[in-house]
């Protein structure tokens, strides 16, 4: 800092030394000419500056991230009533998910070299070998990742539905409090996760499969330390919950490094909770 100041001062001194009396006179004359030109015009009648100026409108200045990705909001189409004459009974509400006390738990990694466990010995030989070979006809998978709901239900889509509109399912939860300034960071991470995270879509009880991690990142976007489970997911121990936790963990690793602006490192060096919520993908 002092070095740059001294550089600027010496350059100004050189400019002063270079100025001559003739230059001074020229500059004064030029300024006087400009002022005079603003005072004298050929016609004064058309000057009505005050009347033509637009009224002052107060504005609120709102700072938001450079990029947002809010889904368009559309009206939800009311569902068609069943065509049958008999009306279905109102189903009872599903019981609420248990809410265990949030308790942080350290995830302890098992020793990498656990001895393999002995398994029971098989008893019987399989049935006789085939005489006819199965036909080798296979059908390739058809994944249409842009239409998850269509994959979940193969009925023909309703003709009245808007083709590219969807209800904003992320209801503005992220906006407000801290998140207006970091929407672009959140969008960047979410968009990246779109390619890395495979939600556990076939498992039952999707609400039990929400996973929260606490993740610390290095400034180059790599993972600084293994992500730690937090919140309710830290205490979930069912095989499905463990599979969901590991799927999210794999996604966190596969997606690194996260390309985020280093000058805003303080905004993203810790992500907590880093939540993986499969419910929207499971139609639940």
């Amino acid at each position: 800092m002092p070095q740059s100041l001294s550089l600027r001062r010496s350059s100004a001194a050189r400019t002063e030394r270079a100025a001559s009396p003739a230059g001074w006179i020229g500059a004064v004359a030029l300024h006087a000419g400009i002022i005079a030109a603003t005072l004298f015009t050929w016609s004064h009648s058309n000057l009505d500056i005050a009347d033509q100026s637009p009224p002052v409108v107060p504005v609120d200045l709102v700072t938001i991230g450079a990029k947002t990705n809010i889904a368009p909001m559309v009206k939800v189409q009311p569902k068609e009533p069943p065509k049958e004459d008999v009306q279905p009974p109102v189903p009872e509400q599903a019981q609420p998910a248990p809410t265990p006390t949030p308790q942080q738990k350290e995830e302890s990694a098992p020793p990498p070299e656990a001895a393999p466990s002995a398994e029971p010995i098989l008893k019987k030989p399989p049935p006789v070998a085939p005489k006819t070979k199965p036909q080798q006809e296979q059908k390739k998978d058809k994944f249409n990742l842009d239409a998850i709901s269509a994959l979940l239900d193969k009925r023909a889509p309703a003709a009245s539905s808007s083709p590219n509109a969807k209800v904003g399912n992320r209801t503005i939860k992220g906006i407000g409090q801290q998140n207006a300034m970091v929407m672009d960071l959140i969008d960047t991470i979410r968009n990246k996760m779109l390619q890395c995270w495979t939600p556990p879509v076939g498992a039952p009880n999707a609400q039990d499969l929400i996973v929260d991690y606490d993740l610390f990142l290095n400034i180059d976007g790599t993972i600084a330390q293994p992500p730690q489970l937090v919140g309710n997911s830290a205490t979930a121990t069912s095989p499905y919950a463990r599979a969901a936790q590991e799927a999210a963990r794999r996604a966190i690793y596969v997606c690194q490094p996260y390309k985020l602006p280093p000058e805003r490192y303080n905004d993203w060096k810790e992500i907590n909770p880093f939540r993986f919520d499969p419910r929207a993908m499971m139609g639940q």
Partner: protein
Amino acid sequence: MKKFALALSAMLGLLFATPSFAALQVNVNQGNVQPLPIAIPDFIGDPAGANIAKVVSADLERSGLFRPLNPKSFVDQIKSVNVEPNYANWRVINAQGLVAGQAQMQSDGRLRVDFRLWDVYGGQQMLGQQFFTQPENWRRIAHLISDAIYERITGEKGYFDTRIVFIAESGPATNRKKRLAIMDEDGANPIFLTNGSYMVLTPRFNPTAQMIAYMSYVQAKPRVYLFDIDSGRQDVLGNFPNMTFSPRFSPDGNKIAMTLESGGNSDIYVMDLRTRSMTRLTFDPAIDTAPSFSPDGRQIAFESDRGGSQQIYVMNADGSNVHRISYGGGKNGTPVWSPRGDLIAFTKQGGGFHIGVMHPDGSGERILSNGWEDEGPTWAPNGRVLMYTRTLQGGRGSQIWSVDITGRNERRVLTPGAASDPAWSPLIQ
């Protein structure tokens, strides 16, 4: 002056310092459902190891949840199953899982197979197991390994060490032979259980044993029979004057619910297999058939046209509290309760025949299959996959297809020739 500069810089520092205490909150609710890339090199040691790795690879690929990587892309090889792999060498080919195994012939003539599943990105072992068996059992070892990997990754039991019983069809349409046949889940080892001299329909597996109930037209009289796969012995189930059909075992395997037709009226009965005593459950003059127990044995789903069209109803196992659950339009029949209990699969008729699922209260109905005429669903023992009969348009025969309950991974099941009416076995004990 110096003090002023210091004070000024301190004030500027306070103004521009960024508060760094709040962690970023990110809620990810959209992903990309794609199979897990997994590397399965040939197991080292005995030549059987290469075959085992290939069967494991095929099993996992068939599930639609795994994508075994092409071995040609591997830049590293397994030298010992007991040494931690160099994860970086497997990360460069984007493998997220690595299966390393070895097969060794023992001095007593048995085959020993070890394998480990490694988490390539997490850098840790996820699973390690060891098997001893007769060498000719190598396919079962492969299926058991597939089941273990599947369970470790998805959280639910596998279904590769299972068998499918089905109706093998042969001959011209005017003189179609329908024989009871059985094969491994991957289509290997198909054998015929009956000789085709009489027609066989609707086989159903006992969920606890290798036993099948089915309907057969012996002496032109349709009746329910029991077939013990291990002994090959078959018995008629009760000697009723009228036809019995549509059998289904209870979850404990001790009872069979079935339909008994009498005087043009079909009703549902349940038979205790130990005492052979029958209890009537429905008394409606309409057709009540296709019973299926809930996995806890307390309820039975069935189809009935008592409301004017064929629909799905649920009642308690004693016949009380009958209520309709299908309201999604069209006709709905052949309900089959998932072993997991969360869904009922069924056949929907209306614009073709399709396989669908709904919750036991009738909510959340979804259609899963895409065929022209799909019917008769059967569940994998883990409640994750369905098989069903697909009849091809234009009298081109029938095939067996499978689909995941998410509607993904719809594919044909390999059978020797035309096949229908699949029934999925429980896991082999």
